[in-house]
């Protein structure tokens, strides 16, 4: 029996064949992959994983592809670092950082979801990859499409920073700047996805694409020595990543790779775009959409598709949600860099800022095994910290001047 049984509506449970559909025809709820876990349990063991490829494909039995992976063969298996310095600063003895800043090939966790999405898209016969994006996703889709020999269309708002546009153009996709706002790009992409036979990774391929995020849970559990952490702190944009980390941990338990999962799943947002965290703090099970206004642009989704499910996950797992100001985001980026030598993008600053709050509030206890997810590289959002890192010392090429600036040898 195939490991993928169907696509199933998360609301009404209606099932569909595993094609490129993403919305239930009956109730318009989102679709999710339904697996045959009994079959997977037979094929997947700790040993089979440990002897698998050094990439996310070591977990391919729990990923939504039918054959062998063909795109993004080197994505995943990023370092899990025991963050002793940052832990000491925050009063946490067992703090870990999952560092997707160094994911292959485009330095963000999007390389995971795109590897899965485009492998599945090719299985479904697609020759063109597409996405709507403001940064990391576009970079990853363009890079993977280039490697896979697929045509590629990337849709971006017309006022995007030059560096981000360049980061797409280098891979030679068709970069389409839309004269309008994020909302206009969003609406147009949704319409185009209905008209063209393209693999729009975050529209019609979304049920498969989102599954790639589970590998962030799988890897952490394996890297911790086959145990689930007590806490995870996860940045939230659409909310999908947080729900998939929870799903991934529970799948490992379901097939017997983990004995116990009592992880508290905590969500992090920037105050300038915190519809999910605000709803959580107000004790609501629904969120009010917002107009984003934050430097954490990779998290700036005002009307998050998985916001409702993220709220449900936090409640179910006993986790919390918090938000931080843009100043706290910058402090978080600097703190991680200065304690652990990791330069994270703004989303990482959000995660560290919220981690700091949760530790201070006593939500995360000193001894608890805690994993903070750092999902993108700071080199992509340098403008965010440009004014907070100081300037180089500028001196003439003179030993005297050097010693005047830094003191005599042996003096310090």
């Amino acid at each position, binding site marked *: 029996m195939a490991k993928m049984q169907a696509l199933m509506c998360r609301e009404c449970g209606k099932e569909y064949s595993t094609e490129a559909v993403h*919305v239930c025809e009956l109730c*318009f*709820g989102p679709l999710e992959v339904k697996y045959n876990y009994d079959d997977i349990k037979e094929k997947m063991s700790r040993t089979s994983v440990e002897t698998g490829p050094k990439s996310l494909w070591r977990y391919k039995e729990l990923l939504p592809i039918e054959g062998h992976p063909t795109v993004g063969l080197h994505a995943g298996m990023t370092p899990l670092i025991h963050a002793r310095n940052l832990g000491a600063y925050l009063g946490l003895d067992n703090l870990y950082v999952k560092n997707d800043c160094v994911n292959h090939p485009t330095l963000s966790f999007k390389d995971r979801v795109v590897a899965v999405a485009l492998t599945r898209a090719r299985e479904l016969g697609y020759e063109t990859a597409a996405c709507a994006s403001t940064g990391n996703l576009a970079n990853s889709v363009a890079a993977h499409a280039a490697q896979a020999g697929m045509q590629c269309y990337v849709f971006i708002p017309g006022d995007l920073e030059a560096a981000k546009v360049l980061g797409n153009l280098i891979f030679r996709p068709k970069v389409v700047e839309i004269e309008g706002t994020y909302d206009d790009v969003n609406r147009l992409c949704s319409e185009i996805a209905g008209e063209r036979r393209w693999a729009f990774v*975050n529209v019609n391929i979304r049920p498969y694409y989102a599954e790639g995020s589970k590998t962030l849970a799988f890897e952490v559990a394996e890297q911790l020595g086959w145990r689930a952490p007590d806490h995870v702190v996860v940045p939230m944009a659409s909310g999908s990543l947080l729900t998939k980390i929870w799903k991934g941990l529970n799948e490992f338990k379901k097939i017997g790779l983990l004995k116990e999962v009592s992880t508290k799943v905590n969500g992090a947002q920037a105050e300038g775009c915190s519809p999910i965290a605000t709803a959580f703090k107000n004790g609501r099970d629904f969120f009010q959409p917002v107009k984003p206004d934050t430097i954490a642009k990779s998290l700036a*989704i005002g009307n998050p*598709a998985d916001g409702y499910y993220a709220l449900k996950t936090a409640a179910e797992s006993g986790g919390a949600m918090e938000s931080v100001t843009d100043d706290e985001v910058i402090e978080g980026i600097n703190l991680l860099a200065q304690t652990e030598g990791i330069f994270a993008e703004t989303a990482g600053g959000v995660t560290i800022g919220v981690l700091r709050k949760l530790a201070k509030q006593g939500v995360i206890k000193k001894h608890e095994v805690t994993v903070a997810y750092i999902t993108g590289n700071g080199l992509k959002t340098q403008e965010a910290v440009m004014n907070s890192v100081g300037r180089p010392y500028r001196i003439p090429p003179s030993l005297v001047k050097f010693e005047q600036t830094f003191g005599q040898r042996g003096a310090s």
Partner: protein
Amino acid sequence: MKCPSCLPLPVEPMAKLRFHIRFPEEKIPEPIIYEIGHEYQVVTSIRRADVRETTGWMDIELSGETEEIERAIEGLRHKGVLVDPIELNVVE
């Protein structure tokens, strides 16, 4: 002049477009979906909804000629309703 409800239903082939719409608190008591069905030549089909005292949303399908659906969407926006694709934000 014919009343809007007496106008003939749209003929095939019809487009069917799906939207997620949200009502601000002050619009919740208004029969907006009823009005749209009468003011424009579109058929409205509500698939899921959650309407409370202070907030409300619906997942809705509009059937009709594409241009008429677009006019109906503009009409909804004019009435203060927020209209998004059924997928919500896909830009990320």
